[in-house]
């Protein structure tokens, strides 16, 4: 084995190294998952209670108080839960990965490995929470005696989309967090902001297709779809709820496009900053 270290050299072997360090990646992800459910006895319970409570509250607020109705014959609680599923994952993954580099500062300053392992690992950890919540969704469907159809088999595709968007934003946030140490105060705000910009408690059909403003025709729905979570949430609803929720290919493609841009730019920015992580962390 012959290794050459030169300025700028690490760039060239990056992807090969990523593969070479797969065992470390697996063991770090395993560590995070073990610790997550070991540290708090209610670790698993917590992963269930949070989405359950928000689903109940949202169903009451939007359905009973705001008198919104779900499209078709879907119970409103299922409409909310189907959106909560990817949203909770997205929110957790975003805040976990934004802190992941700082949390592993001792490793980063003491050993070499492709730093990309760390934020990916934290998104995966959040994915375990997601799987638990998925069980909750199944329980709710049984409760409402709601049987999904063939569209369910397309769910993994939307999971990948959710994963990719969380990963893209997470990369940006964690790199910015190392660079600007007060950035972490902004992250909860971004999460909250994103929550109100995402159709968790209501159906996207509530957002008008067109919006007339001083004589201008604004394609409001398409602009709304710039939020990658719009495509993800509507995709989840479509595949889980027998396609009774609206589903626009144009909106989905915008979300997919935004996600791809986020991931690509996230990787670019992360790798640009990565070289100095050990020096500034």
């Amino acid at each position: 084995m012959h290794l050459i270290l030169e300025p700028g050299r690490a760039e060239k072997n990056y992807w090969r190294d990523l593969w070479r360090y797969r065992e470390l990646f697996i063991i770090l992800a395993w560590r995070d998952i073990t610790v997550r459910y070991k540290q708090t006895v209610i670790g698993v319970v917590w992963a269930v209670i949070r989405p359950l409570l928000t689903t109940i509250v949202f169903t009451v607020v939007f359905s009973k108080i705001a008198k919104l109705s779900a499209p078709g014959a879907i119970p409103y609680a299922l409409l909310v839960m189907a959106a909560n599923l990817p949203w909770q994952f997205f929110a957790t993954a975003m805040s976990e990965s934004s802190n992941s580099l700082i949390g592993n500062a001792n490793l980063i300053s003491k050993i070499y490995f492709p730093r990309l392992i760390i934020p990916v690992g934290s998104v995966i950890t959040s994915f375990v929470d997601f799987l638990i919540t998925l069980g909750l969704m199944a329980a709710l469907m049984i409760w409402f005696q709601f049987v999904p159809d063939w569209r369910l088999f397309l769910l993994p595709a939307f999971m990948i989309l959710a994963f990719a968007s969380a990963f893209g934003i997470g990369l940006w946030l964690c790199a910015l967090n190392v660079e600007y140490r007060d950035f972490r105060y902004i992250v909860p705000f971004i999460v909250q902001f994103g929550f109100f910009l995402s159709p968790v408690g209501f159906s996207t059909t509530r957002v008008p297709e067109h919006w007339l403003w001083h004589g201008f025709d604004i394609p409001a729905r398409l602009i709304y779809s710039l939020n990658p979570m719009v495509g993800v949430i509507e995709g989840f609803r479509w595949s889980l709820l027998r396609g009774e929720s609206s589903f626009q290919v144009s909106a989905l493609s915008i979300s997919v496009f935004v996600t791809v841009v986020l991931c690509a730019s996230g990787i670019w920015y992360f790798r640009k900053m990565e070289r100095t992580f050990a020096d500034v962390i």
Partner: protein
Amino acid sequence: MKNDAIISVENLGKKYRISHQAERQRYTALRDVLANKVKGLFQNRKSEIENQKSVEDFWALQDVSFEVKRGEVVGIIGRNGAGKSTLLKILSRITEPSTGRVDLRGRVASLLEVGTGFHPELTGRENVFLNGAILGMSRAEIRRKFDEIVAFAEVEKFLDTPVKRYSSGMYVRLAFAVAAHLEPEILIVDEVLAVGDAQFQKKCLGKMQDVSKGGRTVLFVSHNMVAVQTLCHRALWLRDGKLIADRDVAPVVADYLRGFHGQDDIQQWDDPKTAPGNDALRIRSVRLIPETSGDDNLISMQTPFRIETEFWVLDASRQLHFTYHLLNDQGITVLTTGFPMQVHPVGHHKAVCHLPGNLLNSGGYSLKLLVVENGNKVTYIRESIASFTVVDIAERKGSWMGREPSVVRPILNWNVETLKTNSSSTHN
């Protein structure tokens, strides 16, 4: 292959940017960046240029070149901030060099800290796998050596206990055990010996010795000169980011120690009016002079040395008694000595006292001077009128490379005789 060097380093340099703005922070805050941008809007461009000037380049390493052959054990010495850690960080790929090139022809494992990545919530067993993976072992490799690691650490009973319940001793033992079972071609070790109690350090050093005898290439950074001399054949000395010596370990270490301790033992005042003292007596100088054949002023544990005091007596009618207290760096008075009360005529005098070798332990010492007048009145006290360091340059090599905890280090003779044997060999 052209050469058999396993590590070759050419013109290696590492540059850091240091900002002189306000207090030096290790990281930037977005708040400050934004505030500066806004400020910039209202200022002219001239001040912006001034702001940029306040950022300065700092070379933590500069033009470092050396080669290490397969199986060599090389010590890296230098004061704090000399660039040792930066060099190790570059070699272990934690940070990239700014200039130059490094060729590594073998698998590298670096041990910059014992127990990197240990997680307190995980059990001992889990942490062995975690730490092993972090140090670059594969799972199969860890599984194969697992029993050996646990036995070395002596924590069999607590394998399934979270390490947060471990005593600090158990924790360090387990961490070192994992590290000690690494089998890379190149091992980079930084100050791991600074942890644990004396007993454990002994064990670590023993293991290090095994490793270095096993044909592994080792780079070893330490402030423990005895360990460096015992383990390494060759030493690199870094000062201010530059490599200033690269040859056999003994002369490099001796030079290094001399650079450290050469200057602090001479104090001299030439003018009797301003020299320390009182109206009866002024001190001209107190010197410590090693009595060795060499002309360097290094005092090792074996070196006999003398204390020379020159003084002026200004009033012959007063009876003066000089007392010296020799204090070690823990503030313990190791010995007191002095010359008896007697009348000195007015004038310039010199008093000499010989101290034998093999008396003091290694460490820092200071000399306190008391002058007593007429047997009952202390007329002059000066703390630390001279200070010096006794170094251990491993002339007396034992299995133990740390510093003995004793105050003095005389060589004492032991007679061991057999009074009666009970073994079967008596029948022969």
